[in-house]
């Protein structure tokens, strides 16, 4: 269907954005890459009064490293994220996630800020930033807030953002860690039926601070506390991986969806757990 009639305004800077938002009130909706929002307009799932284009606000751009964090501006497009050298060096989990997101033409427009703000439970980037223990930096007329990623996703398509508040950047603490992402999707580029983004450290042969974050199996990214605890402090081997898989049942409460019943999703999550954790082992150590 064609998009509804609506207004369009473009903000040139953050101060400009606050005044445009104040002028349009609740009729205003922010647009970044438009790769989700414009598709929902075609379904008439929403009818905003005015789209406020933030893509030319310079403060929301750029990728940099300083004071122990990798900062990724909200307007960073998926394709830029995927080829950025700083990201590849300090957050290779994000580099690995990009090819799993949609298709090249969509990755050329869609932004990390848009993906996090939309908070699709099957999206890759929300799960990755929870796994990396990142901080979401927000901005509004009232100033900046810093929200830990694990507290940012509050419910199905819901976030901790207040009205009039936007995502300005994501900050990822620099750390030596192992990380990986895997998912199961029916077709290349589809949203995942189930996926896992994982990060952990191995110190003295023991697993430290494991974070297993599942997507496509709940109302948002699910940080699996029990499965992660089953790995903490243990050697990564067939026994601890099996323990994590067994503990996972209590971490996940997947809804029935188009893809299948909860038990199928639990099964896929266990399979992904095995694949991802075995991937951290040397070839000779891999459990059957």
């Amino acid at each position, binding site marked *: 269907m064609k998009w*509804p*009639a*609506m*207004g*369009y305004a*473009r903000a040139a800077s953050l101060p400009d954005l606050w005044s445009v938002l104040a002028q349009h009130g609740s009729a205003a909706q922010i647009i970044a890459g438009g790769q989700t929002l*414009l598709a929902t307009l075609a379904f008439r799932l929403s009818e905003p009064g*005015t789209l406020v284009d933030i893509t030319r606000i310079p403060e929301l751009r750029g990728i940099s490293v300083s004071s122990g964090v990798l900062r990724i501006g909200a307007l960073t497009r998926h394709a830029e994220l995927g080829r950025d050298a700083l990201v590849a060096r300090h957050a290779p989990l994000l580099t690995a996630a990009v090819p799993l997101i949609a298709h090249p*033409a969509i990755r050329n427009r869609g932004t990390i800020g848009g993906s996090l703000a939309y908070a699709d439970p099957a999206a890759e980037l929300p799960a990755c930033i929870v796994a990396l223990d990142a901080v979401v930096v927000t901005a509004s007329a009232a100033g900046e807030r810093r929200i830990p990623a694990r507290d940012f996703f509050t419910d199905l398509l819901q976030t901790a953002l207040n009205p009039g508040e936007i995502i300005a950047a994501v900050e990822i603490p620099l750390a030596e860690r192992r990380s990986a992402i895997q998912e199961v999707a029916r077709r290349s580029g589809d949203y995942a039926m189930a996926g896992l983004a994982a990060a952990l450290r191995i110190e003295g042969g023991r697993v430290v601070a494991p974070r297993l974050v599942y997507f496509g199996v709940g109302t948002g990214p699910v940080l699996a506390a029990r499965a992660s605890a089953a790995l903490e402090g243990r050697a990564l081997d067939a026994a601890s991986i099996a323990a994590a898989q067994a503990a996972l049942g209590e971490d996940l409460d997947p809804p029935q969806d188009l893809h299948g019943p909860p038990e199928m999703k639990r099964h896929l999550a266990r399979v992904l757990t095995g694949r991802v954790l075995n991937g951290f082992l040397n070839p000779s150590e891999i459990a059957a």
Partner: protein
Amino acid sequence: MTASDREHRSASEERSVNPPQQRISLTVNGERVTRHVEPRRHLIDFLRLDLGLTGSHAGCEHGVCGACTVRVDGEIVRGCLVLAASLDGADVVTIEGLSDSGEVADLQANFVARNAAQCGFCTPGMIMTAADILAHAEEAGGGTPSRAEIREHLSGNYCRCTGYQAIVDAVEDTLKARHLAADSDLRAVPALQSSEASR
């Protein structure tokens, strides 16, 4: 009718509509174009209805089929998921411009040779995306992408006729032929040949 023939509709006719139209000035296939557009106009309707460039197709109009693939500022995008109003200053290339430039003459010949177009609805989008594979392969400077990589890159472009096999064949043939041509170019230039050999 070319884009510039359509340049001047009466300004009052264009601005009397509510919500207000946006004035955009951009380059389409190398030609400067200035228009007033409604915010609800997507890039494909702008190209087809306002500029008469009907090579770009509107299929699903919600981002899944790829029939609307065009280049904006050198990168392929879904034309149905781009606001025309946001394109002030942009550089747009459609299948018409890409075709006229000769950049994909070999690819198009291989589409014909391999029967990679049947009804042809998906073909402009396929060519735009396949051209992106060719361009990136050249940037990466060498190795021919595998069939799996070609399929992956084309995965967002649906074809309801061919079963894809012939399309992948046509793209693969073009990549291989260009790769061979690049190799023999290198051999033809002694200086490059020696630097190649010293690696």
